[in-house]
């Protein structure tokens, strides 16, 4: 534990916040609250921002840890983009498991609250919204921007995850299989995990 913390502190100039200090906890909650309404395309567009916050801005995690908790959040059952709970936990877990869980729950609530409130309004007023020109322009206009951002996110995660040729090869094969087949992603992770255990792919 302490070894990895030292590594993350050494990699950048910033210092990790003490989240048991409630003012710093509030600042973090505010960051997630203000990102919530920008989670286009199901929330994955925010991954670059999460990486920026967690690795570059606050030093909660190393890039490699970020890649790992992304994988864990993808493998875990339930709705996607619960990664925020793991980010929040990573922000405070050095202060003990209690603070880790509190911070994880707080981060998840913060990222979901604004979009949930907007969704309630949308659900109750959809019949008026559905034919509005705003709806049409929003859907058509933000779609291509979402597409560009998703490519940027995919490239970022690829870069922080893979460091040798076999690793890139596995990622490319998984990408093609994701697009061409309906095999559950859990199989890809299982096979790749075994490859990692056997030392076939390295960092």
């Amino acid at each position, binding site marked *: 534990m302490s070894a990895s913390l030292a590594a993350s502190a050494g990699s950048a100039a910033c210092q990790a916040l003490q989240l048991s200090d409630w003012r710093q906890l509030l600042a973090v909650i505010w960051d997630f609250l203000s990102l919530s309404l920008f989670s286009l395309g199901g929330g994955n567009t925010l991954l670059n921002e999460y990486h920026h916050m967690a690795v570059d801005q606050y030093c909660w995690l190393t890039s490699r840890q970020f890649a790992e908790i992304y994988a864990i959040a993808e493998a875990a059952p339930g709705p996607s983009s619960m990664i925020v709970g793991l980010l929040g936990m990573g922000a405070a877990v050095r202060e003990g*498991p209690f603070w880790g869980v509190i911070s994880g729950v707080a981060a998840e609530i913060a990222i979901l609250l604004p979009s949930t409130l907007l969704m309630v309004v949308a659900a109750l007023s959809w019949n008026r919204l559905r034919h509005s020109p705003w709806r049409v322009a929003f859907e058509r206009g933000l779609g291509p921007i979402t597409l560009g951002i998703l490519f940027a996110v995919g490239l970022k995660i690829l870069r922080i995850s893979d460091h040798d040729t076999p690793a890139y090869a596995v990622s490319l094969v998984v990408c093609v299989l994701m697009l061409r087949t309906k095999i*559950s992603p859990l199989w890809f*992770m299982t096979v790749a995990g075994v490859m990692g255990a056997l030392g076939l792919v390295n960092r």
Partner: protein
Amino acid sequence: MAEVAPAPTHWQLFLGMQQVALSSFGGGLSAWSERIVVEERQWMSKEEFITGLTVARLFPGPNQINMAVYIGSRFGGLSGAIAALLGILLLPFSLLMLLGLGYYYLHTTLAVDRVLAGVITASAGMALSMGFKIAGAYSRDPVAMLLAGVSFLAMTVFHVRLVPLVLVAGPLAMAWYWPRGERK
């Protein structure tokens, strides 16, 4: 509009969404959601459910969570939405917190480290596939491809953050795609 059961109470919303979450351990959340909400519990017709999916995808937020919020708020307003949200999140999120604690305390052990080194190559491939998955819908529209390309370059090469990017490119794109004279 086939026969639709009486509107669910908050407790039923919570239990129904929890059933969705439990059934989908292993994947296929939206398919399970439809099976349970439309077929088993008959809270909604299939048409209503599909409308809900459209709204859930359009608005910001994770799609499946938005769908639960849509279902909950249709029957119970804000408090119904919270009941549905708790139902779909409680068990998966608790499990995730346990996994997270396991990760943060064990990830430096050699075996876990090596397995994770493999697993992240797969999840990177999954992340890479996200863009390709929806690219087909835009490939015949040169303006859309230009917008996508500019957004990609802005983030990747010029390190523009998401919020300013969306605030600048969003209104420009909306102006370009503003419906002119067409009625649907």
